[in-house]
């Protein structure tokens, strides 16, 4: 168990391309941090720098109170779960779990105890003598986590561990990972591009864009007060409506803002509302329906209950205090 500190961390590749720059994160002991961002935003690179699989070009990474910049991955006291599981195909599940411990010279009875314990936690006891290819995707995922657990490391690093699973299994495994982390209280860094996964798992979210941190905060903070238009559009589903202030000049306070953000779920139908939307398309989701339309030349999406009446144009109001205002150029939040 340990805290992890990233101090001005940056990554520059051999060709001079900057993948990550100026990243500062303080991760408390036992905290579950999720790095989230679109593909190519540098989140995996960042994780791999913590793991020691990529060299650190700038800044320092501390695990506990030890600077680990020049320490081999095996000696950093971390365990990693890979996207494609990276199980050794020629070894049985038991050998897969034990391999890391064996290389460290852990005594045999101790290895057996830890493997049995991990198998118990993850319910993979019946598969211990099978080869990975005889397991289903979810079971392989469990084995990959088991390999991390048996090491009893200071930190777990997850690199998009659920993206190879089907949607239903992903939801189940997501919950399992969360419960597991609650139980073991091991500091964890989790990388994903799925904002839903990020919201549900994280104690704190780190939203990355183009190699830089856009915002760090609890899921609700990030959802309620996105620091920039990028975060606003990335977190939350369906995405927040971002409308140029010129399209709705009569809303209060928009005079200084470049962009107005309103979440689709914060809009309601109201005969006296200030926004008039022409309906273009409707998506039925069962409990709700998404109405897509246009106002003042800008696209707008509204979440309505499935029994709401529809017509060619809707007059909309927003919940008080639900307007997000952003600056014109950089799209930073205005409070």
């Amino acid at each position, binding site marked *: 168990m340990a805290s992890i500190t990233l101090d001005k961390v940056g990554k520059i590749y051999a060709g001079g391309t900057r993948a990550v720059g100026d990243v500062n994160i303080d991760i408390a002991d036992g905290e579950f941090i999720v790095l989230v961002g679109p593909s190519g935003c540098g989140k995996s690179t960042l994780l791999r720098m913590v793991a*020691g699989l990529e060299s650190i070009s700038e800044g320092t990474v501390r695990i506990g109170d030890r600077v680990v910049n020049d320490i081999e991955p*095996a000696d950093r006291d971390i365990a*990693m779960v*890979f996207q494609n599981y990276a199980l*050794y195909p020629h070894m049985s599940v038991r050998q897969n779990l034990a*391999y890391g411990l064996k290389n460290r010279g852990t005594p045999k009875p101790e290895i057996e105890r830890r493997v049995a314990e991990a198998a118990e936690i993850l319910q993979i006891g019946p598969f211990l003598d099978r080869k990975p290819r005889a397991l289903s995707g979810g079971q392989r995922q469990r084995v990959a986590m088991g390999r991390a657990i048996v090491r009893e490391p200071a930190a777990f690093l997850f690199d998009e561990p659920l993206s190879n699973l089907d949607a239903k299994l992903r939801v189940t495994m997501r919950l399992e990972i969360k419960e597991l982390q609650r139980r073991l209280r091991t500091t964890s860094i989790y990388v994903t591009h799925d904002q839903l996964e990020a919201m549900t798992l994280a104690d704190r979210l780190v939203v990355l864009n183009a190699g830089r941190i856009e915002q760090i905060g609890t899921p609700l903070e990030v959802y309620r007060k996105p620091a920039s238009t990028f975060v606003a559009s990335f977190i939350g589903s369906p995405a927040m409506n971002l409308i140029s202030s010129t399209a709705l000049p009569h809303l209060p306070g928009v005079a200084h803002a470049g962009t107005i953000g309103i979440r689709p779920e914060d809009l309601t139908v109201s005969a006296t509302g200030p926004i008039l939307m022409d309906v273009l398309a409707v998506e039925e989701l069962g409990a709700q329906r998404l109405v897509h339309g246009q106002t003042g030349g800008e696209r707008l999406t509204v979440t309505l209950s499935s029994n709401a009446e529809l017509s060619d144009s809707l007059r909309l109001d927003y919940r008080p205090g639900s307007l997000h205002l952003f600056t014109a150029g950089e799209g930073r939040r205005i409070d």
Partner: protein
Amino acid sequence: MIENRPGLNLLAHLTLMLGVAIVALPVWVAFVASTHTATDFMSGTIPLWPGPHLIENYSQMLGAGVSTSGTPPVGTMMLNSLIMALLIACGKIAISITSAFAIVYFRFPLRNMAFWCIFITMMLPVEVRIVPTFQVVADLGMLNSYAGLSIPLIASATATFLFRQVFLTIPDELTEAARIDGAGPMKFFRDILLPLSRTNIAALFVILFIYGWNQYLWPLLITTSSDYYTIVAGIKRMADAVDGLPQWHLVMATAMLAMLPPVAVVIGMQRLFVKGLVETEK
């Protein structure tokens, strides 16, 4: 393409049978020849059915050999061939798997050049470099020795290239997982790479064993002592009977015997061999 027409099926089978017949006929003739006496073949008509002298011919070859051509008994030559083929096959595999390991997994200066240097030697088989190679081997005093028979044939660009391709298909994550699991380079090689390329090693062994067994020109050139004659070169020497007619029935018996070890290797390792050639999943 799957078609279900009896006519096409028949045609396909006929074609295959014709192919088998073309391949098998010379082998059959050799076998028939090895069961007759010497004179049967000098009469002008080649018999097409086995004769009564099978045991006699084979026991003579296995026991005494053909004294007139100066070759030792077949057993000695088979043993020489076996040692040479095994040395070549094992040596080639050992050297090429380690050099492929170095090229794929280590970043050292001139790595690409090293790879291309190895690759270019593909253009220089023994036949091309035979005179200088002979000179080097002679200067090192390796004529008439197992080392001289095998070492010049061991370096192999083909096998290095093959293992390089195999290693490139092993996902990076596996390497990284091993690194995090605390496996150093040699441990990774032994615990992960070797078991994962097991089938490829087997496939390559079959090919290289046959390559080694069938070596003809090189052993013929560097062995002058009959203690080191290999079987393939020995057959040639037998056929060159100095005074008198070549004893075809005995030459053919030797040829039949010489075929057995490669056949045994192919049959014995067939399953692994096919797996190694077609398997892509890692």
